[in-house]
C-alpha cells in the first residue's frame, strides 16, 4: 500500500527560504538547495517550493532554483506561487519540477486547471486551497492572494470543482491553523479528503509528531506538509516517521 508522505515546504523569496506566522512576519530560514538536500537525506518523501517573490527578478531566480534542485535531488517536488499561464507551467516543468501548484490564478480562471491538465496530465497539476472557517456561512471559505482576499466560494465545493477540471492533487492549507503549531485542521482535511478522488496534502498547524498521526488517521490525509518545525529543527522527519511507524501508520 501507499506510504503516507511527509513533505517539507520551502517558502522561497528572491532565492532564499523564509517562514512566517499566519502568512506574516517573514524570517530567513536558509538556502533552498541546501535545505532541499538536507531534507532529502533526512527522508522527506517530496518537497514543495512556494515562490513568494513579488519581483520579476525573484521569479527568474526561481527557475534557477528549480533547476538546481532538480539537478541534485532524486525525490519529486512541486513548485507553486505566481503561476498564471500555461507558459509559466511549461518553464517550471521544463526546468525540472515534477508538479506545479496553482492557487489564486486557478480561482480567477478555473479553465487554467483544465488547460494544464490537458497539456501536461493531471499528475502535474496541484491545486492549492487556502481556507478559513467562516461562522457566517457555517463552513470554510476560500481566500486568494496568499490569504488576503476572501472569495464567495466554499472550500469543499471548490476542491470538487478543481478535481473535475483536472487537478491531480489538492494542497489544503488551513489559515486558522497555519503557524500556530497546535495541530492540523482535522475537520477541514477530512471534509475535503472525503469529497475528492485525488490525494490531499494537509498543511498548516504541524507542531509535533502526534499531529501527523492524527491528520493521517482522523483527517484521512494522504500527505502532510510542514515548514517551520522542520526548518527550525523542533522535530525531524525521522522523528515524525518513527512515531508514525509506532502508531501503525505506513511510512517509507
Amino acid at each position, binding site marked *: *500500500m501507499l*506510504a503516507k508522505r511527509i513533505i517539507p515546504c520551502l517558502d522561497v523569496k528572491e532565492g532564499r527560504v523564509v517562514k512566517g506566522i499566519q502568512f506574516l512576519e517573514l524570517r530567513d530560514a536558509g538556502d533552498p538547495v541546501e535545505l532541499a538536500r538536507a531534507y532529502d537525506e533526512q527522508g522527506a518523501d517530496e518537497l514543495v517550493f512556494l515562490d513568494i517573490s513579488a519581483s520579476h527578478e525573484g521569479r527568474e531566480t526561481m527557475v534557477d532554483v528549480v533547476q538546481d534542485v*532538480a539537478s541534485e535531488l*532524486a525525490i519529486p517536488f512541486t513548485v507553486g506561487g505566481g503561476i498564471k499561464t500555461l507558459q509559466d507551467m511549461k518553464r517550471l516543468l521544463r526546468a525540472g519540477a515534477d508538479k506545479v501548484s496553482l492557487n489564486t490564478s486557478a480561482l480567477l480562471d478555473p479553465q487554467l486547471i483544465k488547460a494544464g491538465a490537458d497539456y501536461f*496530465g493531471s499528475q502535474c497539476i496541484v491545486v492549492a486551497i487556502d481556507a478559513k472557517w467562516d461562522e457566517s456561512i457555517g463552513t470554510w471559505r476560500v481566500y486568494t492572494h496568499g490569504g488576503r482576499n476572501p472569495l464567495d466560494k466554499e472550500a469543499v465545493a471548490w476542491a470538487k470543482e478543481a478535481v473535475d477540471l483536472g487537478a491531480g492533487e489538492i494542497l489544503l492549507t488551513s489559515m486558522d491553523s497555519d503557524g500556530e503549531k497546535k495541530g492540523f485542521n482535522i475537520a477541514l482535511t477530512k471534509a475535503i479528503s472525503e469529497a475528492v478522488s485525488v490525494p490531499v496534502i494537509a498543511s498548516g498547524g504541524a507542531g509535533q509528531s502526534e499531529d501527523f498521526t492524527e491528520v493521517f488517521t482522523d483527517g484521512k490525509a494522504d500527505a502532510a506538509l510542514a515548514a517551520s518545525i522542520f526548518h527550525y529543527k523542533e522535530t525531524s522527519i525521522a522523528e515524525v516517521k518513527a512515531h508514525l511507524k509506532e502508531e501503525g501508520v505506513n511510512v517509507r
Partner: protein
Amino acid sequence: MIGIVDYGMGNLFSVSKALERMNVPYIISDNKEQLAHAEALILPGVGAFRDAMKLLNETGLASFITEQVQKGKPILGICLGMQLLFEESEENGLHKGLGLLNGRAVHFSGKDQDGSSYKVPHMGWNKLDFHKQSPLTEELKEDHVYFVHSYYITEHERDTLIASADYFGEVPAVVGKEKVFGMQFHPEKSGDLGVKLLQNYTRYVKSMEVLK
C-alpha cells in the same frame, strides 16, 4: 552511451541528471542515426498513451525502436515509456503500443473488492515485492519507489514480472524479457533505490557490450 529517446513527451531533465550523477554518458535525441550509435535506449514518458504513440509513429521512432530491439539493443521504458512497450492501452480508447512485450494497460477501477472507492492516480511511495532474479534488481533490497500513474499493466506473461507493488491488487512495477525492460515508477525520483535500479540497468548494458 545511453540514448534517451526524445519524442516530445517525457521528463528528460530528471532522467538525464540521474545518469549524469552516475557518470554514465548519454545523449538526448530524436535523431535515429544518433540513437543508433547508442549501446542502449531509455524510453521515458509522461502524458497520455495515445499522444505518445502518435508522436512515435509520426517520427518513425516506433519502427526504429522495434528494429533496434530486434537487433539486440537493450531498452528501458520508464512510466508511460514502460506501458508503450506493451501491445495496447485502453487510455482514451484502444490504442496499439510497440508490442515488444505481451500485455495491455488498463485503468485502475477506483473501487476495491468491497465496492469502496480508492484514489486514482496511484501516486506516492509504494514498496516493491521482488518476484524473480533479474540483472535490474541484483543485490538490491525491496524498498519504496515513487509511482504516479492511472493505468497499469495486466494480461502480461507471468515470467516477465520482476517486481510488483500492491495497490488494491498486484501492480507490475518492474518487467523484463530478454533485453526489454520497463519500470512503472520513476527511478529518477525514487531516492537511493531508484538510483541503484538505474545503475543496474547501465551496468547490465555494459556487461552486454563486453560479451559482444
